[in-house]
């Protein structure tokens, strides 16, 4: 495929994407379903008098003894007892309430028995009669009675919140994972005991989804549908990785060792550790006399991590050939450099031995 053709294909795909977006946007008006008319059912139906049906209460439809949220919602057969339009009833029942923080583990029986609540659902679920509020109580309602200050301070969310649901829920308070959180999440983790805070929601395996560089499939390949995640390797990272490494050289070393770099570079023949390597460096990178620009020295001072990506090979490093004590490359240590290791240590002896 020629480059010109490729660009025309690209333009076509972008245009197609725009059309799809516009079409979806045009259809958005039907996205929001009607809320269940709780108020009408609880207070708007004549009941309790001769010839009328029994008055409804919350437990007329909701089975609070069940443990699964789905089971607490009524079956359509309950609606069919009064409604003739079974299809409509089922359509409304199919719209489960949105639970942004997942299902809450709560003992309804115990709460309903409390003197402050006296068997009433509405004190917590005020939204069922107030269309401006959510039928599910916010967490501040829970804290209105409970004393969970200690768990709150530690960030312990279970067992009220389900661990599985929390996997996909970002906290909405002081722990929220927005803005630059990804950049300093390691700092945050260091400020609390390992057992608490992060690990009240996350498992170690989740950390390793990103940080385990030995896995064969990177997290970008495993989670291609997560279009909002801050995964650094998405898109054409293979090409731009050298630019990224130059831009933020310390960032790569958060997960990778230089072996990671050399594994690929060796396979592509641009490593100093392979036979007959391709030389990626420009002319006069290494000079044979003092009048040569010797660009490599400046580059190494500025970004030695990139050098290490190919040239790190312990005593086999070709840097030593010129820079060991007595060789013509000179002292490579920068001004102000020091080490607590003695010259007799194994690593120092490569040059000083």
């Amino acid at each position, binding site marked *: 495929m020629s480059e010109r053709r490729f660009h025309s294909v690209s333009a076509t795909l972008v245009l197609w994407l725009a059309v799809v977006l516009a079409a979806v946007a045009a259809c958005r008006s039907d996205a929001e379903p009607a809320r269940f008319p709780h108020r009408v059912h609880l207070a708007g139906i004549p009941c309790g008098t001769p010839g009328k049906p029994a008055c409804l209460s919350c437990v007329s439809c909701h089975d609070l003894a069940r443990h699964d949220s789905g089971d607490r919602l009524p079956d359509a057969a309950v609606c069919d007892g009064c409604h003739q339009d079974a299809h409509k009833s089922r359509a409304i029942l199919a719209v489960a309430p949105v639970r942004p923080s997942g299902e809450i583990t709560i003992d309804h029986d115990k709460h309903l028995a409390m003197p402050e609540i006296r068997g009433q659902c509405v004190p917590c679920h005020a939204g069922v009669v107030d269309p401006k509020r959510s039928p599910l109580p916010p967490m501040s309602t829970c804290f209105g009675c409970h004393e969970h200050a200690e768990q709150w301070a530690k960030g312990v969310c279970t067992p009220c919140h389900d661990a599985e649901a929390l996997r996909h829920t970002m906290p909405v308070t002081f722990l929220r994972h927005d803005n630059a959180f990804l950049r300093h999440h390691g700092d945050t983790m260091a400020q609390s005991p390992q057992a608490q805070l992060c690990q009240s929601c996350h498992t170690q395996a989740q950390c390793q989804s990103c940080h385990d560089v030995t896995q064969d499939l990177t997290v970008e390949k495993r989670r291609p549908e997560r279009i909002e995640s801050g995964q650094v390797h998405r898109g*054409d990272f293979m090409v731009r990785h050298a*630019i990224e490494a130059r831009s933020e050289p310390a960032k790569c070393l958060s997960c990778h060792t230089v072996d990671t770099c050399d594994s690929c570079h060796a396979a592509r023949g641009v490593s100093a550790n392979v036979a007959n390597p391709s030389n990626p460096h420009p002319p006069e990178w290494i000079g044979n006399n003092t009048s040569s620009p010797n660009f490599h020295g400046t580059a190494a001072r500025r970004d030695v991590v990139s050098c290490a990506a190919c040239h790190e090979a312990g005593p086999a490093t070709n840097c*030593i050939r010129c820079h060991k004590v007595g060789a013509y490359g000179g002292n490579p240590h920068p001004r102000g450099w020091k080490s607590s*290791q003695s010259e007799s240590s194994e690593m120092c002896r490569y040059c000083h031995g």
Partner: protein
Amino acid sequence: MRRVGRPLLASAPSVVAWSLLAVRPVAAQDVSVAPAPKQGSTPPAAKQGSTSERPDRFTVLGQSETYVSLYRQALLPGQNGAQVPTETAVPVHEYLFANARDVDAPWQKDAIGVEFAAWGRLWPTESSSERPFDGDVQTANVRLDAGPGWARLGRQQVAGGAARFARFDGATLGVSHLGFFAEGYGGFTVLPRWNATAYQKLGKEEDTLLTVPPVQPERSSHWLAGGRVGYKTTRVSGSLSFHEQRTEGGVDHRLLGLDVGGQPMDRASVGGSALLELDTGRFATGRIWIDAAPHRLIDLGAEYLHAEPALLLSRQSVLSVFTTNGYEEVGGTVAARIATFLRLEAGGYLEAYEDNGSGERGEVAARFAWGRTRPTLVRLALSRVMAPENGYRAMRASFSHALTSRLGATLEAYGYFYDQPIAGFTTSSVYVGTATYKILDRLDALWSASVARSPYAAFDAQTMLRVTYRFDGPGRARFQ
């Protein structure tokens, strides 16, 4: 599979714990399911407090992910740009995760936790560069709580502070009381994977190219140890940490870390960290940051970073002694939700490299989201990166939509425009699409495909199938 032995040893504590756990659901108190109340019946509030002892309530989560690579072409050229011969293969990857939390122990409620994660790969056909079997145990440990103390045994990780991120087979002990906490850990380093000769060279073909054949590392000479002490309250937290890692008997890393954080007001938090490399007595990194939400619809973040990358190399690296140059980075992010369906995001960072050169990176994005039951998301982003010798402009358009309650799809397009040609090309493009289908409540399938053209591949095409199975269904994770 050649590396079965050691990971199994590492996972031994988990095997025992899982065996114990297997009988717990039987031992747990059975909570009968009451029939649905009839109209006019008494609310269940009348049935209060019939049990005197709380049953064991613990969480067991399990998940299997199977990946089948259906096709891929021109991922990368071979050595010196050589054509890679066509191979017919259907590699299959399997990831397994399982964990249990808050299991009661004889000495304390909610005192046992177990975690296991592993992956394996089958390459069913003959290949010049891939092993027929591969795999690793990522995590296999058991956690025990007793009063203010706790212990974790097995394959695990330590993250944050001086350790940054390290995996090891060993033990961690910790205690916390009145906001103070102390932890210590030690064990044998996991990386590189063991029982695989020269794993770090990624495959047998690459091994044959090396001028210096890698040697099988002696594991007893690769170990790490460290600890941290700290204090945490609602408003203030901080820790001092130490991490020493040895490679082939020599110092790999010897770091001292300081992390502090605070929430001076409800809508702002600040933090800082410093990493002192003890061998050279220099700071490898130093960072301060602030996050603030001056309005409920606006988020702000600012950060300053100093880093000296050579200090993050292993002290066994010859190149780690060649420079003390570092760089400074300062920048921030802002996000504003200007409508219920629209959020604008922007971020930018400036870098100043010691000796010479500067860089910058920034992104502006608009995020549109609507629909509650069938959510749709569109995100458009423009970014710019300038590094000392090259840079690029990038565009990214992302789209996801739930077509039905079970069927969803995503589309993404990336375009890159490089300041300097790379292998003669100045642009690259990537298009990715996925379709997900919830077959059952516990069973999901995903199909993904991508095409790309880049300086390294004239036409890159890949497609993959992923099947995810959860051993626990939504809402049934907690046994009661």
